[in-house]
């Protein structure tokens, strides 16, 4: 191994910085899963009968399903009987201001450098912070309410807007869609609900921070975003978790619905604990994210920066049902140490003149494994549809792996599918070239990687892009020997 590679590995393999826990009291709840547990969970959350029915139906479906194993990753299966399916801070405050938030929680956010407070507000971002399972803080509600936008926790939406939740929940990701989606449907703890009414541009970017902070607590977030005709919204999701030894399961479901001429942009930065040098610990990130361009001329765009988790299985997808609808997927997935990521997208073209773009950048270092898995399907009636895919992989060192699994099927001869893929190594020549110009080795590496991911990061909303760069820097920072 050359000096460059070693330096690169030491930089990329940086210890997780956010390894600390917050001392918050938790309400006790029995471990394991059963009908009784689900009833108890639903009761504690004060849910209506129809929601309980939904959960029980999902639970019975899940019990009949098998855990999938078709992906390019190996890990110790979670023990579903030993998980905690509900946790919430003991004090459930009704908060008017940040001052009312538990100081420990605030401190956690501060340690993370999350500009939850003034900075965000000055930037015009409403923050719905999810601390474990219960939303503890929601801001800018009034301004959003003035615009007619509903932005609240999914638990609140179930009570306050049951007709909307009933109509759209599981309409994009059916209860039986997959093993983890079924489990989520049965036990989802909380999450966000967002509804943008007709012809409304959401007056601010919506942001939620998810955080896992309870040993053994599976996190089952549920997010539902509906953009009515002519509505548009940009939603930002970012997360990071403290260091624990036990693997923690995260099986979220995110559903997006875009009606005629609606536009949804969903951006994610994911930086959960990825385990130690030996692959011990770390989050299992098994997420189902899917959007449907239900209306004509609608658009859904997924952008993600995935740097954390021990195992990631995640395929944010778009069903292009409306004519002229557009689906986009921009992804940077970084794996280091023994991380395993199998991620990509599905673009299902159903309507006429539908277009999809996929830009995927994978960076693998250490002994990690990074796979892109993408499916492009063009249906019989999707006349004149187009897909353009680029999947680039960058390898750092000799022990990591990068794989590309494109699945393409077109049933319509008037449509076109274009797929490009490249694999490169961070070259000594590139590093030498930049160093010859006076740039330090560390900055040279950082420049090369930033250049590699630029096409994706530029899709992030500006203030989020700053955080993304910061995260990449943290991931890359370290001493050069």
């Amino acid at each position, binding site marked *: 191994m050359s000096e460059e590679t070693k330096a690169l590995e030491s930089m990329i393999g940086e210890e997780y910085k956010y390894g600390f826990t917050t001392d918050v009291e938790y309400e006790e709840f029995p471990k394991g899963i059963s009908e009784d547990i689900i009833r108890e969970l639903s009761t504690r959350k004060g849910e209506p009968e129809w929601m309980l029915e939904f959960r029980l139906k999902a639970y019975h479906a899940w019990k009949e399903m098998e855990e999938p194993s078709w992906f390019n990753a190996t890990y110790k299966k979670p023990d579903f009987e030993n998980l905690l399916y509900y946790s919430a801070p003991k004090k459930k405050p009704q908060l008017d201001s940040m001052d009312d938030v538990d100081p420990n929680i605030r401190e956690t956010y501060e340690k993370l450098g999350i500009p939850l407070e003034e900075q965000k507000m000055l930037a015009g971002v409403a923050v719905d912070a999810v601390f474990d399972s219960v939303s503890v803080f929601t801001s800018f509600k009034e301004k959003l309410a003035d615009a007619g936008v509903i932005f609240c926790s999914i638990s609140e939406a179930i009570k306050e807007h049951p007709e909307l939740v009933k109509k759209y929940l599981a309409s994009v990701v059916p209860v039986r869609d997959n093993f983890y989606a079924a489990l989520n449907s049965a036990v989802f703890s909380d999450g966000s609900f967002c509804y943008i009414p007709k012809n409304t541009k959401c007056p601010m970017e919506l942001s939620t921070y998810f955080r896992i902070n309870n040993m053994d607590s599976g996190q089952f977030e549920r997010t539902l975003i509906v953009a009515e005709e002519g509505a548009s919204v940009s939603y930002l999701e970012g997360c990071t978790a403290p260091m624990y030894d036990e693997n923690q399961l995260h099986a979220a479901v995110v559903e997006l619905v875009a009606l005629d001429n609606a536009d949804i942009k969903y951006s994610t930065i994911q930086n959960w604990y990825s385990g130690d040098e030996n692959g011990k610990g770390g989050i299992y990130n098994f997420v189902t994210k899917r959007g449907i361009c239900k209306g004509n001329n609608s658009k859904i765009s997924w952008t993600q920066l995935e740097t954390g988790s021990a195992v990631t299985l995640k395929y944010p997808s778009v069903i292009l049902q409306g004519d002229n609808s557009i689906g986009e997927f921009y992804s940077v997935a970084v794996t280091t140490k023994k991380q395993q990521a199998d991620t990509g997208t599905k673009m299902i073209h159903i309507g006429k003149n539908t277009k999809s773009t996929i830009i995927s950048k994978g960076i693998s270092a250490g002994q990690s494994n990074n796979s892109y898995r993408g499916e492009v399907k063009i249906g019989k009636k999707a006349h004149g549809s187009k897909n353009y895919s680029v999947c680039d992989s960058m390898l750092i060192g000799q022990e990591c792996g990068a794989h590309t699994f494109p699945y393409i099927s077109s049933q319509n001869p008037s449509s076109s599918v274009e797929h490009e893929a490249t694999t490169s190594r961070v070259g000594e*020549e*590139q590093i030498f070239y930049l*160093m*010859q110009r*006076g*740039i*330090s*080795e560390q900055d040279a590496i950082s420049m090369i990687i930033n*250049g590699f991911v630029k*096409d994706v990061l530029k899709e992030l909303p500006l203030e989020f892009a700053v955080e993304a760069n910061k995260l990449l820097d943290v991931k890359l920072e370290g001493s050069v020997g």
Partner: protein
Amino acid sequence: MLEIKNLHAKVEGEDIEILKGVNLKVNAGEIHAIMGPNGSGKSTLSKVVSGHPEYEVTEGEILFNGEDITELDADERAHLGLFLAFQYPVEVPGITNKTLLREAYNTIARANDREELDPLEFEDYLIEKLNVIEMKDEFLNRSINTGFSGGEKKKNEIFQMAVLNPKLSFLDETDSGLDIDALKVVSDGVNKIASNDNAIVMITHYQRLLNYIKPDFVHVMMAGKIIKSGDIKLAEELEAHGYDEMQKELALNGEAQ
């Protein structure tokens, strides 16, 4: 300015020496040309002097303004004022020329306790330097060498040289792959940069470059050594008789191994 003493070097991890005892002295205000056939070690010499990590110095030393730089990293050598115009300039997608140059310029300035330039000042400085090489300003915002033609890449190297204003520049086959018009532009640029305060070492196969950039000294390199030094006449001799003949002649005189 530069003094190379009995320099031996090999590719790290391999046994075969590529440089087998190179001696060279370059003073400020001088232009040198190193000529030689393929595989003679010319390009290796430029890489070893600029600190390419692939090579290992096994014997000898490189002095730069009296300081032994043999063990310095490439960026530290750059801070001292060493520049290499690459034979094959490297593409770095996603990073613009401008970003690289500002980063490089300010890093070198910091290392030398000189004032850094803010983005606006730097922009003005760059525009001024563009004239040296007749480059359009659109080059500033393109990714480093990405999708550049061969000629554009070589011009870009000389542009970078103009911007960074090094004390000593190695030009590694800067003329190769250039048509006659581009060669003129590049040579003009180098001549504009050359001054009494800096020095230039050109590495080339062909005498043609020397018609445009007049060297004070010409060296012939073969089999990892400089076997003959002289003035421009040596280059003319080479052009007329070729390397083979010179090698034979030297062998007869017992000067080459």
